[in-house]
């Protein structure tokens, strides 16, 4: 069933909260991967607040849906959501990056409940997700595996090796997302290594391939629901997003892949987030 207007409104409110927390953590941590954390937020919010079958009080519940953040540097944004869902005491996030903290830039599955794979080295997550999806089938389990990739990450050969195998095994219990914000560290993806046509590439590799606006909850919801109905192959959803989304001075600027912000910038960022949601929520 498509998301209702009320649901979409609630998801926007949640995204606003998470984006603000991303700004706060980036400030208190002394820097962070803020651009990609902001671009991935809406898709992750839709998953965590609507679609994932999870129980934060039982992080290791065997039947839970799995969610692998293959672009592990989105850790700040992911941690904000996991904390809000109650996987851990979210006041711990003020120690992000501090010596001895369980939270470093890339979330660690041995230290952070809700994190199922210690990602950060790009190009690992899709293979892990395929193992989890295959494992569910072998064990007769119904969990669904979700994985989010960076677009720059799709330069890695291992992504395409995994894509080949995922299609070979017809893993229809696997749904991937590419956070297609069109930027990596050194600049625009298409100036460094041409990735397009990304949707077509996954299709040729044997996947159901969809392309959506990754900030439009109606489209996100439809795509996730469609993926659940596809049989005999995994689905990849290419999400067109904006790196730095909602913070106007960061949007579409690759220099904000990673950065530190001072308190003035925090204020400006918060205002920018508020005005974005003012337009949407009224």
């Amino acid at each position, binding site marked *: 069933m498509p998301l209702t207007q009320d649901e979409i409104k609630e998801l926007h409110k949640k995204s606003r909260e998470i984006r603000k927390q991303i700004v706060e953590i980036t400030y208190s*941590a002394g820097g962070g991967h803020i651009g990609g954390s902001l671009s991935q937020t809406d898709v992750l919010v839709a998953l965590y607040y609507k679609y994932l079958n999870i129980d934060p009080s039982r992080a290791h519940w065997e039947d839970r849906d799995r969610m692998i953040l293959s672009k592990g540097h989105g850790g700040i944004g992911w941690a904000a959501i996991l904390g809000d869902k109650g996987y851990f005491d979210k006041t711990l996030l003020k120690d992000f990056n*501090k010596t*001895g*903290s369980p939270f*470093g830039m*890339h979330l660690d599955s041995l230290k952070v409940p809700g994190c199922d794979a210690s990602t950060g080295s790009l190009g690992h997550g899709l293979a892990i997700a395929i193992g989890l999806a295959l494992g569910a089938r072998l064990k007769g389990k119904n969990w669904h595996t979700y994985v989010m990739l960076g677009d*720059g990450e799709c330069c890695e050969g291992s992504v395409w090796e995994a894509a080949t195998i995922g299609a070979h095994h017809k893993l229809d219990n696997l749904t991937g997302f590419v956070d297609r914000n069109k930027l990596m*560290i*050194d600049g625009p993806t298409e100036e460094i290594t041409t990735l397009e046509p990304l949707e077509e590439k996954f299709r040729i590799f044997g996947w159901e391939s969809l392309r959506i606006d990754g900030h439009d909850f109606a489209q996100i919801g439809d795509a996730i629901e469609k993926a659940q109905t596809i049989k005999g192959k995994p689905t990849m959803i290419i999400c067109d997003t904006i790196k730095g989304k909602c913070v106007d001075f960061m949007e579409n600027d690759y220099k904000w892949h990673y950065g530190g912000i001072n308190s003035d910038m925090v204020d400006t960022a918060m205002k920018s987030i508020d005005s974005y949601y003012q337009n949407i929520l009224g």
Partner: protein
Amino acid sequence: MAEGMTWSIEEADKLTQAEIYGDVLCQLGDKYPDLVAITADLAKSTKIGRFGQKFPDRFFNVGIAENTMFGMAAGLAQAGLRPVVSTFAVFTALRSAEQVRTDICYQNLDVKIIATHAGISFGQAGTTHHCTEDIAITRSFANMTVIVPADGIETGNAVVAAMEWPGPVYIRIGRGFEPHVHTTQDYGFEIGKAETINDGNDITIICCGVTVLHAVRAAKVLEKEGLRVRVINMHTIKPIDKDAILKAVEETKRIVTVEEHNVFGGLGSAVGEVIVESGKACAFKKLGLQDIYSIVGYPEDLYNYYKIDSDGIVETISEMMGKKIEEDEDWEDET
């Protein structure tokens, strides 16, 4: 440094290792028209991008594709160019180990690799980005030369020297925010020749990379307690300077190695191999990560936590000096 090989950068002591590397590479670009530089979406972080700004036609950013990058470097070298490659240490020595070993080292190709963010210098990034295995891995590749410069100035020297050194070279640097050990570049850097930074006959610290700074500081502290500590900067792990090690065994009979690396397979192991093969008695201790993965944190805190900073070195040496060492009476006959 061999004659005619120089670099010059103003106020080099204020720059990080990577910044000096990037600037020196630009200077080398003028000298070697066949020098090509490659990175994998880390042009800015590793500073190899400075070469790219100056020589865009000889610079290739392959995107986030390390294995392909090292394979390409092998092909470029076979085609007669001089590839210089940079990414983080973990993606060089771990992810692309096989490309580096089979495509580059086995063919003994002239590829120079400058790997950054090594050890636990990128402390807040966690285990996926730490690299405390690369010395062990790269030194186990036949034909590979392994250099761990102590600071930015030594990095400049090492990069220049590597260009004239045959075969593949792995230069390991950290983030390099620490103060420099060297004040001038003319201290006689030579690949394979250790540098004695502080002389003394009570005990020897053999160190590399960022731990050289800490060893020098520790030696100063211990000097106040009346200990004369020899500090050997073993910037070249392979080929290792056996003479410097054996001299230290003979003259100081106590050796402690310090490295930002697992104690298995790195500098300490390399030094230990030389000592054991010599058959000489020596009190020996390896400081480093004791076969564990590092916690998250600021590098300076982590160096302290893992006892590879000056506090840890002082503590270890104080313990070692308290222990009696059996004299080997036949020493003279055996050497």
